[in-house]
């Protein structure tokens, strides 16, 4: 390669430009005095939001910077990192049910002083203005941590046209659970090959969750005092059983999921296209219907409840539901909060007050209606948590057409007695575990778990968190002395060592000393890097593994607790993640080796056009991992109408052998094979290595073998393989270390980015580093994560040592023979 003389000059100037822009970028962001807001999303359809924010800017002269995309919202990990890293936004628009969790960690500021300060101001926040369910959801231990903004509640949508087609009365939609199940059956239509053409009802499609069914049946997830998790109460378990029954009646959750994996959004939403006949979903769906399917003949009624509830609340003999409302809905929604460490809390408070005011809501509605009208779409307002705002908007903007007004009225009328998820610092965990229990129970064919078992497991995990939190204060704080002593010992050791070396330097000759000093100088980057980024962290992480540390509070000494927790309460996760990774490595690595080697052998045959083929095979391996994962999530879509591979499968393997296309990342037992297939696509990078190995085999060996009368197979077994064994060994070692640290692909393909609580269906893609990442940066359980890291380290070490030990038995080094 010829590099022109001017190359260094060009390189230096590039470097200078880069550094310059970089420092400029830094100063710019430091000078920025914008009010930074996370969790609001500007998009095509957010004219109203834009109007609200712009009006605030106009009135106050404060510039607002709305950061969407990953900033907070449904990804708590980002917000937590920002708060922990002292770079929080000024305002966060956050899902309300997580407020208890955030408040308990001291990550949000209590807003009571602000509320008290402007008690007499005309724009003061008054609790009475808000729906009780919304306001109470933002209170933790008696303090207000957030101001509710929007809200929503849930009801049953049904497609009247499909009701008529199925011979059902479109004016008598199901009212009870039994009626719902039977209607679901009647409305389901199969294709000739047994796959779904349409599904009557999917219990967890839309937005209902086990929460709704459980409340309908009188079950509660938490005790009144917030100290006990009661998820495994018989009513909630029965509710889960009901959901499972519907899935089973439809042919099993895997089959339903395969169909559901093909669901698209917006105008192709399955309810709008008639692929789903009924769903329980939020009020926002009315807007989608208004926009995309103004011709859809639909109805909205309260979600069906157990017969018992309906009869007893309607004047039957008094039972456990006596005196309760006949129908149940629950509300969620968002709220504004001010994170701890926010740079401009005063302005943030002003912003929040404006955003939830009736005036802003009206302005929002006006702008949004104008936008919609310009596009010929009806305007259907959402529901504000502020009742005054809501009334004002409804007065002026209630849709003219009854098909939208009636449902909207129903949703609003149900709000005053809506339920809300318990406010607890384990709110996120409770949500994750309830979703997991649902997943485990409905996949009972794979998991062999009854709803009761699934709920018990979840309860145990949540209860463990609760107990630990209540006991935390009893743990001794890790005294600074301990840390100091350890540092001093390490420091002394290092100093003694260096002193010894320096001593050695003195006894050297002048030249040798000069060389030694130069050696230290040249090695300095790595020596410093090792001390700061490897040795120090190793010691720290070892210390942390015996601590309870959430970064925001000083660490507390917890003894072996992290380890015992890992091996007892959380054994499920440990075992699951290790077996998953064993599967991935055990099958993936050999397959990768075989594929790479086969391609290399083909390419090693002396035929023309080799470099072209080589490029083709190598190309996939240079595709960025994220892009590759995104692409393969699409190629391996479980729905043969969408996924390329399954389309091929359906066209060939299904008619030939009668095998149904697998669900890949949507099915528990196929997610890992999917990951392996995706990995094989990149096997080309290994191929180059194999090719080098193959070309390094002396030709005489083959000639000698031929003289001995060896055939192709014998030559491969007796010459090629032994000569390549160092390469196989290298691949095994690096492959194992790599596989045990699998993360990126799993994060993307396991749906973690979407805020999923499971890593792949039934945790089928949960791998150790993923579990560690979630604990370290989602829950900020640094101590626990460190303990896990050490367990992982020991496993990798042992495996590597075993492989090194076994190597001499089969790895053949040419040099040894000489």
């Amino acid at each position, binding site marked *: 390669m010829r590099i022109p003389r001017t190359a260094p000059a060009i390189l230096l100037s*590039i470097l200078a430009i880069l550094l310059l822009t970089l420092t400029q970028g830094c100063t710019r962001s430091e000078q920025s005095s914008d009010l930074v807001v996370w969790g609001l999303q500007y998009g095509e359809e957010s004219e109203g939001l834009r109007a609200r924010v712009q009006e605030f800017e106009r009135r106050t002269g404060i510039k607002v910077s709305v*950061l969407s*995309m990953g900033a907070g919202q449904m990804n708590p990990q980002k917000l937590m990192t920002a708060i922990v890293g002292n770079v929080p936004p000024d305002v966060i628009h956050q899902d309300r049910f997580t407020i208890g969790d955030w408040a308990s960690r001291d990550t949000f500021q209590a807003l009571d002083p602000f509320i008290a300060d402007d008690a007499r101001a005309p724009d003061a926040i008054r609790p009475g203005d808000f729906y009780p369910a919304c306001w109470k959801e933002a209170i933790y231990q008696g303090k207000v941590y957030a101001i509710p903004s929007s809200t929503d509640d849930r009801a049953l949508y049904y497609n009247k046209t499909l009701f008529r087609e199925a011979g059902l009365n479109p004016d008598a939609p199901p009212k009870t659970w039994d009626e719902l199940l039977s209607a679901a059956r009647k409305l389901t239509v199969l294709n000739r090959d047994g796959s779904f053409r349409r599904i009557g009802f999917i219990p967890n499609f839309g937005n209902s969750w086990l929460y709704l069914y459980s409340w309908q049946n009188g079950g509660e997830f938490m005790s009144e005092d917030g100290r006990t998790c009661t998820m495994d109460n018989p009513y909630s378990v029965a509710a889960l059983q009901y959901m499972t029954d519907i899935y089973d009646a439809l042919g099993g959750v895997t089959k339903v999921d395969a169909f559901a994996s093909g669901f698209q959004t917006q105008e192709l939403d399955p309810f709008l296209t008639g692929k789903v006949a009924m769903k329980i979903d939020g009020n926002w769906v009315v807007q989608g219907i208004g926009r995309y399917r103004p011709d859809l003949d639909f109805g909205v009624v309260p979600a069906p409840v157990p017969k018992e509830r309906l009869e007893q609340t309607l004047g039957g003999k008094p039972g456990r539901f006596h005196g309760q409302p006949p129908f149940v809905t629950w509300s969620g929604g968002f709220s504004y909060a001010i994170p701890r460490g926010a740079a401009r809390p005063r302005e943030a408070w002003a912003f929040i007050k404006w955003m939830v005011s009736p005036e802003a809501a009206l302005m929002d509605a006006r702008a949004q209606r104008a936008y919609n009208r310009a596009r010929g779409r009806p305007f259907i307002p959402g529901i504000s948590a502020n009742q005054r705002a809501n009334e004002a908007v409804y007065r002026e903007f209630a849709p003219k057409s009854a098909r939208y007004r009636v449902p909207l009225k129903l949703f609003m009328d149900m709000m005053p007695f809506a339920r809300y998820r318990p406010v607890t610092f384990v709110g996120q965990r409770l949500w994750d575990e309830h979703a997991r229990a649902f997943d485990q129970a409905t996949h009972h064919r794979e998991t062999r778990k009854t709803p009761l078992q699934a709920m018990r497991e979840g309860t145990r995990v949540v209860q463990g968190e609760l107990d630990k939190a209540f006991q935390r204060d009893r743990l001794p704080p890790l005294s600074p002395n301990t840390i100091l002593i350890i540092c001093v010992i390490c420091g002394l050791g290092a100093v003694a060592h260096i002193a010894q070396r320096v001593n050695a330097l003195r006894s050297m000759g002048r030249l040798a000393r000069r060389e030694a000093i*130069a050696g230290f100088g040249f*090695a300095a980057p790595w020596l410093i*890097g090792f001390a700061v980024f490897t040795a120090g962290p190793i010691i720290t992480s070892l210390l942390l593994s015996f601590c309870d540390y959430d970064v925001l509070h000083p660490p507390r000494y917890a003894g072996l607790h992290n380890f015992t927790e890992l091996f007892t309460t959380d054994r499920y996760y440990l075992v699951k993640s290790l077996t998953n990774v064993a599967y991935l490595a055990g099958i993936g690595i050999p397959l990768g080796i075989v594929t790479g080697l086969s391609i290399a052998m083909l390419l090693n045959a002396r035929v023309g056009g080799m470099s072209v083929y080589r490029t083709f095979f*190598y190309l996939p391996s240079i595709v960025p991992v994220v892009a590759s994962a995104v*692409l393969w999530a699409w190629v391996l879509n479980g729905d043969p109408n969408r996924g390329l591979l399954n389309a091929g499968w359906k066209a060939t393997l299904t008619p030939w052998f009668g095998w149904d296309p697998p669900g890949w990342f949507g099915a528990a037992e196929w997610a890992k094979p999917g990951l392996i297939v995706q990995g094989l696509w990149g096997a080309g990078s290994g191929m180059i290595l194999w090719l080098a190995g193959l070309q390094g085999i002396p030709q005489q060996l083959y000639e000698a073998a031929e003289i001995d009368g060896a055939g192709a197979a014998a030559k491969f077994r007796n010459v090629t393989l032994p000569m390549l064994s160092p390469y196989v060994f290298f691949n095994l070692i690096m492959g194992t*270390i790599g596989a045990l640290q699998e993360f990126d692909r799993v994060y993307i393909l396991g749906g973690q980015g979407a805020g999923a609580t499971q890593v792949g269906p039934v945790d089928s893609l949960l791998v150790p580093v993923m579990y560690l990442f979630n604990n370290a940066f989602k829950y900020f359980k640094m101590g626990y994560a460190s303990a896990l890291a050490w367990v992982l380290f020991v496993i990798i070490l042992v495996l590597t040592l075993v492989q090194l030990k076994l190597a001499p038995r089969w790895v053949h080094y040419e040099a040894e023979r000489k």
Partner: protein
Amino acid sequence: MRRGSQRRVIRSALIHLVLILGSIVFLVPFAWLVVTSLKEDEDMSQFPPVWVPRQQATVQLRGRTLRLVRITRDDQRVTCAVLHETETGDQALEAISPARFRGQRYRVPLSATTKVKRFAPVWSNYPDALKFLPPETNRGLVFVWNTLILSGLSIIGTVISSSMVAYAFARLRWPGREAAFVILLATMMLPGAVTMMPVFLIFRWLGWIDTLRPLWAPAFLGSAFNIFLLRQFFLTIPNDLEDAAKIDGCSYWTIYHRIMIPLIKPALAAITIMTFMGAWNNFMGPLIYISSPMKMPLAYALQLFQTAHGGEPGLLMAASAMVMLPVLVLFFLTQRYFIQGVTLTGIKG
């Protein structure tokens, strides 16, 4: 003799066949990516899959742009323009071709019509994908810029520091060198997970959260793998040159950057490319450290785009294609060094 050459021809034909089939298997996902990024949403869920991007065909009729559909009349396929839709969902049609039906009007239910489509890639998926990005990212240019800064600084840092350290390990004698080298090798086996949390705490202490610095600064402190590679390379250089320079009174720095660096340029090129790929690919780093869109590199932005637009494959695939393209172009320009890089790693085996 002739039979032998015949056999050779058959054999090489067979190998070509297998290679071609294999190439197709490896390339089909790319084709699928490109096709999907150019398809209409409607065509996303079709069996058999739609391989040719197409769109609704239209016709100009009396100054109006009307959609074309096909219906069957008298066992003949008639192409019609849709005049309007009635309230009951029926379609009011006017026949266009064949000639003998022209001008006839029909009223048929939607289900009796098939849309007429013609080859037309939906190029707008590409600008649309960019349009959906937050405005402050300047249609994604910020992501590209961040990625370039990140890869640029990582490359500079890695090349300078790793070559220096490797030089120290390979060509200079200093006390503790052997022990340090063993430690260096050992760190390659250390899972990143062990140091991940404390390193986060260090960067937090430095106030570097939500900046790109945690992602490139460590590159300036050398990476074990590259140091090892370059050391092996340095070891192959004969001593004569160095000795001559020493006699001439050159300093170690002069020897390093005047004599050694030019000799290991091929290895540095390979390392440059590997570092570039690593920086371009880096996902977990930004995932942990970056939260503002203005500071995100491409790979992470793509993942966020996926969570937001997973239901719109056209946009998503267009975005993926745009993230992939620069790497593929680079690959075609510098193929040799890519392959060299991989082969170099094999020396280790």
